[in-house]
């Protein structure tokens, strides 16, 4: 079914703000009145809602998903029954780590001095120093001086025994100049079912 084009569609930003409850009551009323009379924008708003509901389901999926976290988000996940294993490291430290059969997420709390730092990039390096994974502009928990990574349990359980380093670097706004903030070494023991 092809819906008739809307001559004055509600802006995408307004649809998203509406679904996020971030419009003023007057603006929300205006969106509602338009949507009620417009099949096209009803469909578009339905699409925003479907994505929002999907996002709300995603972190609670069994087996987890790769995600940067904040302390409040860790609390929310825990309150929803997401099972997490935690490792907390200072810059320069190493840790023996593993993933259990029931772990949805393995959470790494990496502490560093972020004073004066605008943006942080992170790279996971294998034992030979080759990049495994790169994360750009990671969220910083400035209050506690840390960044918080979560890997999905389902992603980690197939891993063999291996060691890798996480390297955090401060970058300028142009992403050109880098300064090392810290390295964190993980010695991962492979998951063995029933072991």
């Amino acid at each position, binding site marked *: 079914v092809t819906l008739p084009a809307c001559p004055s569609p509600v802006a*995408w*930003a307004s649809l*998203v*703000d*509406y679904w*996020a*409850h*971030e419009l003023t009551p007057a603006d*929300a*009323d205006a969106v*509602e*009145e338009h*949507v*009620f*009379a417009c099949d096209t924008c009803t*469909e578009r708003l*339905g*699409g*925003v809602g*479907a*994505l*929002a*509901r*999907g*996002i*709300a*389901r*995603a*972190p*609670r*999926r069994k087996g987890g*998903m*790769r*995600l*940067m*976290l*904040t302390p*409040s*988000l860790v609390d*929310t996940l825990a309150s*929803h029954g997401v099972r997490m294993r935690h490792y907390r490291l200072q810059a320069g430290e190493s840790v023996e780590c593993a993933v259990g059969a029931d772990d949805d997420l393995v959470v790494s709390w990496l502490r560093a001095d972020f004073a004066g730092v605008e943006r942080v990039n992170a790279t996971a390096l294998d034992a030979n120093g080759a990049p495994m994974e790169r*994360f*750009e*502009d*990671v*969220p*910083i*928990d*400035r209050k506690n001086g840390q960044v918080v990574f979560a890997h999905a349990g389902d992603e980690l359980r197939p891993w063999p025994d291996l060691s890798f380093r996480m390297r955090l670097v401060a970058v300028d706004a142009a992403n050109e100049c880098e300064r090392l903030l810290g390295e964190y070494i993980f010695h991962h023991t492979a998951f063995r079912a029933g072991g």
Partner: protein
Amino acid sequence: VQEVLVVLIQTLRAGRLRQPERVASFVLGTSRRLAFELGRRDRRALVPTDNLDHLPAVVAEEPPAFDDTHLKGCLERLPERERIVVVLTFYAERDSQAIGDELGMAPGNVRVVRHRALARLHDCMASRGEIAS
């Protein structure tokens, strides 16, 4: 839909809807409020029971509109900042002020990041045929 209709019928019966021409806004506003309240609860919790004592206890969840595996893939392709903003918004139900406080961003910037992230997710899901383009 069921919850909203019950609230609408109760309101009409009580004579509290004084502007019938605004019934559309009323229905949508009530839907939004109830959806927000439901979202704050466990997804399996019941809707406000003071309005529904006389109805069957179970309200079915709306089935997912698409394959969540594809959405997970699209989410994992978002830049880190965009992913955390949409997860904090729609999963943890934080507003842009709270998200900005936690991530060191201005609330207006949080909203811009959210708009961009939803647009990317929409395009990603559309490219996989999971949502209308």
